[in-house]
């Protein structure tokens, strides 16, 4: 296959970037999108040019590192896959492919197609956990959990933290990411214990980091490589409203949860 690539090149976070056009030929339709990028980079290196920097690691669709915005879609035109799972047979011979980094204020570009997604870690740090220490835990089967709830929780937990939801959303909103984590825990008895504190802390951190608002366009769900449903966003809204309306403050001093 012969292709024309228009790729965003940006030397570092401080510099201004621009699109550069590359021609590439003899690409096997069986190669993956990232293998096509490898081939491009190999040729750039041999010409003494700086190869295109992009995040990638597991190359099997689970680590969430790869993050290209391809022809108007995060992770490219196919549904339910990451960029590393995208194969060139999906494209037409002679096609022009525009490759951009994720665009969102909380995801600044570090170089070329690499963006900084530390904001996601910060949201998890704000409350995306169950506050238990290692050890001293009752038997795993001591609390039965309805299979349906466990399965719904797993649906939400499948999030790989790639940021495609933010990239796809016209508002650069992180609601699906946050909702997935909130839902995973809200559906399990272990997570319910601090569900109210969790949803408030995580939403506050999300807003604080400068993500946009959810206007229920559903683009996140359509582009999520793990097909996480926006019903999780509704669940988070529910959790958030009831936490805000119903949360009680205990009197007296409370200790830290160390």
């Amino acid at each position, binding site marked *: 296959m012969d292709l024309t690539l228009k790729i965003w090149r940006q030397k570092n976070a401080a510099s201004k970037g621009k699109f550069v056009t590359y021609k590439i030929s003899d690409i*096997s339709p069986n190669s993956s999108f990232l293998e096509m990028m*490898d081939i491009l980079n190999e040729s750039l290196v041999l010409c003494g040019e700086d190869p295109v920097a992009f995040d990638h690691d597991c*190359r099997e669709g689970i680590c969430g*590192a790869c993050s290209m915005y391809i022809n108007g879609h995060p992770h490219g035109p196919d549904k339910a896959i990451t960029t590393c799972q995208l194969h060139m047979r999906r494209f037409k011979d002679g096609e022009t492919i525009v490759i951009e980094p994720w665009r969102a204020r909380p995801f600044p570009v*570090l170089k070329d197609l690499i963006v900084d997604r530390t904001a996601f*870690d910060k949201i998890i740090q704000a409350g*995306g956990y169950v506050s238990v220490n290692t050890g001293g835990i009752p038997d795993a089967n001591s609390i*039965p959990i*309805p299979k349906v709830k466990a399965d719904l929780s*797993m649906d939400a937990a499948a999030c790989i933290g790639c940021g495609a939801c933010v990239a796809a959303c016209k508002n650069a909103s992180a609601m699906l990411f946050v909702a997935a984590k909130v839902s995973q825990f809200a559906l399990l008895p272990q997570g319910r214990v601090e569900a109210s504190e969790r949803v408030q802390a995580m939403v506050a951190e999300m807003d604080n980091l400068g993500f946009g608002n959810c206007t229920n366009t559903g683009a996140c769900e359509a582009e999520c490589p793990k097909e996480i449903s926006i019903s999780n966003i509704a669940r988070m809204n529910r959790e958030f409203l009831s936490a805000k309306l119903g949360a009680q403050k205990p009197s007296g001093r409370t200790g830290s949860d160390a």
Partner: protein
Amino acid sequence: MAELNSKIPKGQLAEKWTNYKDNIALVNPANKRRLEVIVVGTGLAGASAAASLAEMGFKVKNYCYQDSPRRAHSIAAQGGINAAKNYQNDGDSVYRLFYDTIKGGDYRAREANVYRLAEVSNAIIDQCVAQGVPFAREYGGLLDNRSFGGAQVSRTFYARGQTGQQLLLGAYSALSRQVKKGNVELFTRHEMLDVVLVEGRARGIIVRNMVTGEIERHAAHAVVLATGGYGNVFFLSTNAMGSNTTAIWKAFRRGAVFGNPCFTQIHPTCIPVHGDFQSKLTLMSESLRNDGRIWVPKQKEDAEKIRKGTLLPTQIKEEDRDYYLERRYPAFGNLVPRDVASRAAKERCDAGFGVGETGLAVYLDFSDAINRLGKSTIEARYGNLFQMYEKIVDENPYKTPMMIYPAVHYTMGGLWVDYELMTTIPGLFAIGEANFSDHGANRLGASALMQGLADGYFVLPYTIQNYLADQISVPKFSNDLPEFKLTEEEAVNRLKKLMNVRGKNTVDSFHKKLGHIMWEYVGMGRNAEGLKKAITEIRALREEFWKDVKIPGEMNEINPELEKASRVADFLELGELMARDALHRDESCGGHFREEFQTTEGEALRNDQEFMYAAAWEFTGDTQEPKLNKEVLDYEFVEVKQRNYK
């Protein structure tokens, strides 16, 4: 000569760990706050250790090369995690898990360690459930189990085909909680370049900030390496692109001995290689072998026609199919351990019965299971895996059998550690896949997750205290000590040297060449002649690399080519050690198959008289050959037998 003291506690097997815990020195809470621990790596072992140590009160610094701790390659583990819960009432017990693991490892692991692993396995499941890991459940609300290779009980806990992901996210959430509390300082996009020794003890690391290119010195009272395995020495493997050996290799060069480097696990169910441009191999979970049947055509002519594309697998009649695993191993059938399954596939392909365009593939067929259980059941069990397969191969596995072939997956070898998980460098610990540990010569499925979390949650947090207890009077280290400056200088010089080669060939081209040598001579079937050849060829390649590698860009920026080059330079040294280890071990055991040593039926032939030891290699200098030390394995409690899965 390195002194190998395994520090195995005295007493009966089942009492050793309890005795050990009862008698070690502990650090009181006030002192814990003053002690700093560096943990390199944020996978199952690293994240769980960092979180647990921080919860106890230690000040932890945690490093990863990825942009987030959640991306460590533990995330890609699919199948499950073993534990001796016996929830299925099928006769499982701590002893049986221990025994299966020791046997599965072909009697090349340390009894006491493996028993401890089996012992803490149950607590891991409890811990993960409490963290909110959504394991698969039955309709009654209790946890579900599945069976895995090498075991006759169902003891594997799983979360769809994403068990590693869910366990890692559990550990990551625990870690995140400690970051928020200020007990863990997180350094992402930082790659460890070297370990710093002060007066013979590990006291810090040198890292490169991969965004700014800055070289930084970090000091602590102890250093824990949880940096995973080195399967990427083969170029093509199921490891992540960034997985590398640098941390443990640098530790080796600083004096930590390296245990059993040649013990590599070749996983039987991967998607076959399809072209030169291929960058990585994709694993299909071993759990597929629960319902899939592996076969090749009985007639060579059929295999030839299939390779040419003139015959379809679905056209081959039942009686013309050779279900070779069921034929050779009637007791375990398609569920034999990984090394056995891989070798059997290679044997058939080498004999000319392989399928696929290259002839390097066998079929994994679900038609029987679909007829028996219905398509929807199979879809519920393996839907995501089938989808993944179809995305890559462009064939529908519900209609035509999958093609699979073995691929490098896991390295049982790693830094030699004692019972306390400490290397031969005092204060330097290695956990998870980075150590040579508990799997002997072959790892059973669903045991890697178990070991990583056992080390991180339940073993290291105890054993490291025994070391740190006498460090409480040692003040915080300054990273201005001459040892730090010197080590930093060496790291910088090495990178400069790489940049200044300014040769003609890309890093990947060297890595691919190394991979070919390794796969050809140090892969599934090894022999003395080939291994000697490998050593010579790797040396030559290494020399060429340092003369001819081309790295564009600068040191002080994001430079993926420089990162790769630095890793490949280490692989080029490690590859030789692996070949050397494989050459010295004149026997076949587990994943190490020497063609000269096999039974008449083609099974691995161990030599327990001469090789019942862990090979622990010691670095003696760049120009000298490494020195072999031996930790003799003393089987006190189990009877050592020929492994038999027939």
